[in-house]
């Protein structure tokens, strides 16, 4: 980059610096504050500053801990499921479609993503219900004689809802990584006698890992803190971390909500730090940062 573009201009620096600083503060300060509040003491109404591990003790001790465990398991397993399907989609559109079609498909993928996923999840509750279209179709096709109950208000429904909500977004980072791979490397691998599967495992997959990891974080973030999908599709009593946090807020137990939120955000930041540690942001966003 040339010196001219970077040249010193106090006015411009202030004009850009102030809003960016404000944004950074608006994003970071509340998160730090949440961490602090998680150590405060709960009172009948509201909270009192202090240093107490009571909220964490209650969290890791009580029924909420099983919610954390379940969230962790659901988030991990659904992320793997979403990664597999997102990778397949990204791979197909990168290598098996002509470039013009790839762009159209990516656009088509983003259209439903822009419609509120809560509304889409309501739709799934209807589609999967006992008298819903899916059950009717299965009976019409003769695959089952009576409505299948586990389609809705079950783990199956929650996983399906999570995949529908977060998988489309995970295709993008994987596609970014895949499309940045130099095709000559793949051809070289072929010419050196590696069969297609070997080429994929030894060349394509390793080179796409930055995108895969980014996608994994997106999926995990969504599933781990989920509120709507678990409530709508999981049925009564199905709780993930997001539900536990909102129910703590509902009873005005702010330190507890803060403690649980901090644990969730902590997990995310850990994943993000790992990602930044192992992969170069510039490598991944190279296309967007350009020259």
């Amino acid at each position, binding site marked *: *980059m*040339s010196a*001219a*573009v*970077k040249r010193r201009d106090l*006015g411009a*620096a202030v*004009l*850009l610096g102030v809003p*960016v600083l404000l*944004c*950074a503060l*608006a*994003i*970071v300060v*509340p*998160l730090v*504050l*949440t961490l602090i*509040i998680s150590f405060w003491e709960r009172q009948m109404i509201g909270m009192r500053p202090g240093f107490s591990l009571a909220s964490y003790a209650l969290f890791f001790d009580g029924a909420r801990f099983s919610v954390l465990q379940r969230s962790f398991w659901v988030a991990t397993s659904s992320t793997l499921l979403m990664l597999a*399907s997102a990778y*397949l*989609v990204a791979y197909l559109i990168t290598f*098996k479609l002509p470039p*013009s079609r790839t762009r159209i*498909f990516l656009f088509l*993928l983003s*259209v*439903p993503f*822009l*419609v*509120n996923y*809560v*509304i889409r*999840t*309501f*739709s799934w509750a*209807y*589609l999967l219900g006992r008298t819903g279209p899916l059950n009717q179709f299965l009976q019409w096709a003769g695959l089952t004689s009576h409505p299948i109950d586990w389609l809705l208000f079950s783990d199956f429904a929650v996983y399906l809802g999570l995949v*529908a909500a977060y998988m489309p977004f995970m295709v993008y980072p994987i596609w970014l990584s895949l499309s940045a791979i130099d095709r000559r490397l793949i051809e070289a691998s072929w010419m050196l006698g590696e069969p297609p599967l070997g080429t994929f495992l030894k060349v394509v997959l390793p080179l796409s890992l930055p995108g895969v990891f980014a996608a994994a*974080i*997106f999926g995990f*973030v969504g599933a781990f*803190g*989920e*509120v*709507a999908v678990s409530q709508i599709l999981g049925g009564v009593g199905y709780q993930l*971390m*997001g539900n536990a946090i*909102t129910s703590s*807020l509902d009873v005005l137990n702010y330190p507890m909500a*803060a403690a649980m*939120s901090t644990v969730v*955000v902590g997990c995310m930041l850990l*994943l*993000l730090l790992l990602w930044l540690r192992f992969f170069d*942001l*510039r490598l991944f966003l190279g296309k967007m940062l*350009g*020259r």
Partner: protein
Amino acid sequence: MMKPWTRILVWLCLAGVLLFLYAPLFPPLLLAIQDPATGQLTLQNFGTIHSDPTLVGALMNSIILAAIVGVAAPLLALAAAQAVRSFGIPRLIITVILLPLFIPGVSMGVSTSLFFNLTGIDPSLLTMAVVQTLWALPFAFLIILTVMSGFDTLYLEAAYTCGANRAQAFREIELPQIAPGISGAATFSVILSFNETIRTAVVQGGNNTIQTFIWSRYQQVGLTPNMYALMSLIIAVTLLLILVLVALGRKQQPAT
């Protein structure tokens, strides 16, 4: 190059994915135009929307919020994207601005609501606008960053050589080039604001948007055909906005 059956398999697979993603867009309309008792088609459920004063208020709030977020997010994103290029700390800026993407919606909502709580700011349209702007910011930022990467900074140098100052060079040379990206980011932000529930619900206080209205109705009394009518309207408006986005994209790249 590809065997015919592989090609068919690829298309089937991708069509299946699209079917899976588009299927949920239709049930609200279906449930809205059907009379639950008789099964007959009716438009009555759409008609009753405007007679509910809470709902009309919620709709107004949604429109005001979308307008605020649609202006604030792209402007802040533009500042951040320019800062990435001119300040020497691109990694830091990118990481912080993209951070909301990596924080679950509830946590972001809880954190901001605790912040407002402690600073004594009551829940209002303003707090909702802040939360939604922070959510739309990373997306607007990525869009503008992408357009800016297609802009050759040599033009700026040329402008400086001709005696333009920083502001002039930006306004007269760069802005016309990246303007479609900025309006794209604005449209995207409007769509995101219009379709946001969870973060907004945490800081809403007594206010409602149509999204939080549907969400609280669902939690309190369950969904009625009215709500499905509302949902299908939301879907229709969102699809319309996406068409605007496409039109803007065409303007930007006449070649494609």
